[in-house]
């Protein structure tokens, strides 16, 4: 075999390509590097630097009651919305998959289109008024409802595909043995669509965990603000960001999401389409 031959022009092009890729990678990597180094630095700054190692920032953070409470609030909101979204979407997707509703395709696409509006910025004023009239301002249930409303259409859309891919003979077999619809759902459909349910659960949790606008507007009580909102209050009276606190908080705030992704990806593999591994 001939060794590969590079013309000088191809050589230069190749170098240029790697430099470009390197720059793009650095553009995305540097903020992450900051997230890994700054929390352990005695004097965190805006730049990435080799940290002067300390755990002091975390001690400051743990002592900050408001920050710790906000993480708890985030957990409540995220898990609450996740549970309602997965439960509601599973039931709706199962029904839509199994019952021929006229125009269900169009209905699903319309819902999907509208869902991006519901939790979007444009709809915040009417949503605020609606929640105000419903007496759900400063209510965790209110935030969970609004978030769920925004997540459900996409969740139903994705889960319906998983349900469609489950052979009907499984359910018919269970039916002939006397299983009732909820038993069929619980014994047969849920276990088979588990990868889809896990994907939706993580996706819904992450959406709520990272949402700023909805809790920011619907909670007036600072004690109920979740982590995503609390972070923007970490400033000194002089208007300087408390970088020590912010960096440590950011790391703590990201960790559960990363852990969840890794867990679900290992266990089920992320999938946004149906299909059964037998």
């Amino acid at each position: 075999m001939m060794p590969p031959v590079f013309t000088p022009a191809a050589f230069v092009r190749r170098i240029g390509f790697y430099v470009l890729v390197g720059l793009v990678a650095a553009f995305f990597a540097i903020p992450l590097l900051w997230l890994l180094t700054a929390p352990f630095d005695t004097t965190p700054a805006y730049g990435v630097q080799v940290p002067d190692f300390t755990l002091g920032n975390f001690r400051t953070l743990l002592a900050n009651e408001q920050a710790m409470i906000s993480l708890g609030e985030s957990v409540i909101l995220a898990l609450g919305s996740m549970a309602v979204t997965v439960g509601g979407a599973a039931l709706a997707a199962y029904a839509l998959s199994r019952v021929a509703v006229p125009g269900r395709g169009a209905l699903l696409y319309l819902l999907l289109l509208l869902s991006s509006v519901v939790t979007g910025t444009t709809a915040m004023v009417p949503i605020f008024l609606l929640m105000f009239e419903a007496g759900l301002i400063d209510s965790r249930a209110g935030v969970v409802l609004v978030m769920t409303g925004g997540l459900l259409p996409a969740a139903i859309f994705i889960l319906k595909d998983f349900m469609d891919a489950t052979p009907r003979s499984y359910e018919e077999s269970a039916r002939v043995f006397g299983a009732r619809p909820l038993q069929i759902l619980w014994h047969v459909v849920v276990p088979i669509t588990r990868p889809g349910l896990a994907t939706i659960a993580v996706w819904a949790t992450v959406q709520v965990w990272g949402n700023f606008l909805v809790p920011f507007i619907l909670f007036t009580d600072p004690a109920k603000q979740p982590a995503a909102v609390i972070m923007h209050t970490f400033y000194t009276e002089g208007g300087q960001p408390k970088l020590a606190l912010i960096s440590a908080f950011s790391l703590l705030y990201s960790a559960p999401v990363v852990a969840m992704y890794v867990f679900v990806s290992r266990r089920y593999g992320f999938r946004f389409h149906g299909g059964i591994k037998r």
Partner: protein
Amino acid sequence: MSEIELTGLRKVFEGGVRAVDGIDLTVADGEFFALLGPSGCGKTTLLRTVAGLESADGGTIAIGGDDVTRLSPGDRDVAMVFQDYALFPHMSVVENIAYPQRVKRVPKAERQAAAAAVGADLELAGLMDRRPGQLSGGQQQRVALARAVAARPRVFLFDEPLSNLDARLRLSARTFLKRLQRELAVTTVFVTHDQAEALALADRIAVMEAGRIRQVGTPQEVFRRPANTFVANFIGSTPMNLLPGVAVEGGVTVAGVRLPAAHSVAAGTELVVGFRPEYATASAEDLPGALPGRVAIVEHLGTSLLLTLESGDLAVGVTVPEDAEPAPGTSLWVQPRPDRLLLYDAGGGDIIEA
């Protein structure tokens, strides 16, 4: 007692397709009954209607004397084995077999012990902890059967139970299935498109076409005396000869040759004359009541050969012993056995009684 009685059963699909079109049928207690027909004849729909997976649009279904027409599938006390077996992929073999009992809320230890016992009877003892995906086709089929057996139903319904197996395995699975049904003596209805399977397994067969039953009878009756040309065509591993003929006194003429046959139709009536290739002999010389022809095609069937002869415009099939292979083009005479000659009405295709 668990006989099945269908009365005027109808199932019409959207668009007006009459999948089941007024079926009256009684399956006796403990009988092994086959619904046989080409694809699209409504046999699977009929089975699903009996199971309750399709609702009847007319008529009634009674099992053991109880009207179950309006009952949901789980309340009919039937167990079904699906063509794809429908084993739950996330459950082990023992969990699959125990599933009917789980639905009935039998305690876990008890139902798993029962499942293990049934599994052992069906030669699944060493496989109880595997998932269905780790089993061969034949093993999966036995798990599906075991699950149906574990439900202890009044009636088994099998939808093409052998069609997903390869040809070799199908024969042993067939024997296994027949033995199992004999031992359990549970009323069983199975659907098949394979006439050989129906003949081999069933106590009685209903041959269906376009949502209607064309003949019900024992394998022997259906094979020997098909009630019409449709059944005659469908049954038998070699196609029956169905030749145009004309009635004469004490016989029929086919292509100018007089064949003796008892009948009561007026001389000169046009008929269809049927005989199986197995019920005819080929000879090298002209005999009375033999059709002349030249060998066109020779097909090996194992212990015999199927010859297709050209006799004028007609094609006539006959089987000969394996060691009597004639060269293509040889002139032969085919003599049907007079006692196996069947006469059918040329218009409707129904059999003409002697």
